[in-house]
């Protein structure tokens, strides 16, 4: 298992959500979020909150930009824009998967699309497009150090 699979463990929020990298290839990532009680958005139905999908899709899109070996995969970056369409509620007690593809990268910006699904990719529960800015600041800020 290579180092890229450990990447999510180093991101506290991804860890807290339980995100795991299932597989990847150049510019493409498949990430899973296991069903968990603390992610529920509607206590009556047990349906996962839409915000979890947002976090899953954002993280998966970001990783698709940084798959090992692709150009600029080491450059720091930040999400610029994220647009999500929700097609329906996730089925409770089932894992959710997200597949992201970085389909274009320029000197400054990477463009990514992704979809979240439970059974097959043909039946998305959410789709998204995102753009990421390369070369954003990645030094500890004055005043934030140690906090």
């Amino acid at each position, binding site marked *: 298992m290579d180092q890229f699979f450990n990447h999510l463990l180093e991101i506290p929020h991804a860890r807290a959500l339980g995100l795991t990298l299932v597989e990847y290839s150049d510019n493409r990532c498949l990430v899973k979020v296991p069903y968990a009680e603390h992610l529920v958005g509607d206590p009556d139905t047990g349906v996962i909150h839409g915000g979890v999908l947002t976090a899953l899709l954002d993280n998966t899109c970001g990783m698709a930009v940084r798959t090992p070996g692709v150009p600029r995969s080491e450059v720091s970056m930040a999400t610029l824009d994220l647009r*999500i369409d929700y097609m329906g509620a996730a089925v409770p007690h089932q894992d959710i998967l997200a597949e992201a593809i970085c389909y274009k990268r320029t000197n400054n910006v990477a463009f990514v699309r992704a979809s979240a699904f439970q059974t097959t990719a043909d039946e998305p529960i959410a789709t998204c497009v995102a753009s990421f800015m390369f070369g954003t600041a990645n030094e500890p800020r004055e005043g934030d150090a140690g906090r």
Partner: protein
Amino acid sequence: MKLLSILRAEGRGQDMQAVVEQIPYARFLGISVDRKGNEITTIMPFTHDLVGNTTLPAIHGGAIGAFLEMTSVIQLLFDTACERLPKTIDVSIDYLRSGRPQTTYGRAIVTRHGRRVANVRSEIWQEERSKPIAVSHGHYLLTPY
């Protein structure tokens, strides 16, 4: 949501703090609601679990998106006193500044409230209201699919 009907029956239809306390994911993010008259502000204190970039450090873009969405839905419930949770149709997020390891605040405005769909704009900020770290606009379905 059962709770919404109960609160409404008790005349507490606008007690959004009681609502977020019942949503496990809102509790996980540590979200609370402050009400002053007819205005509400959502609050998300910083915790290590929210971090997306440990070098800066900065709050995860997904946590920011989730907080914006929670802010939008809470405002909709507050304004409409509806008994079911609105369903998100789509949301578009602009990330303006990185989220620092500080408390984040949110406000939303329902720009249009139709019979079936509501349009909501949200913004979240940290130290200065005039410097939002992210804004969103989304469409919410008010009737069942």
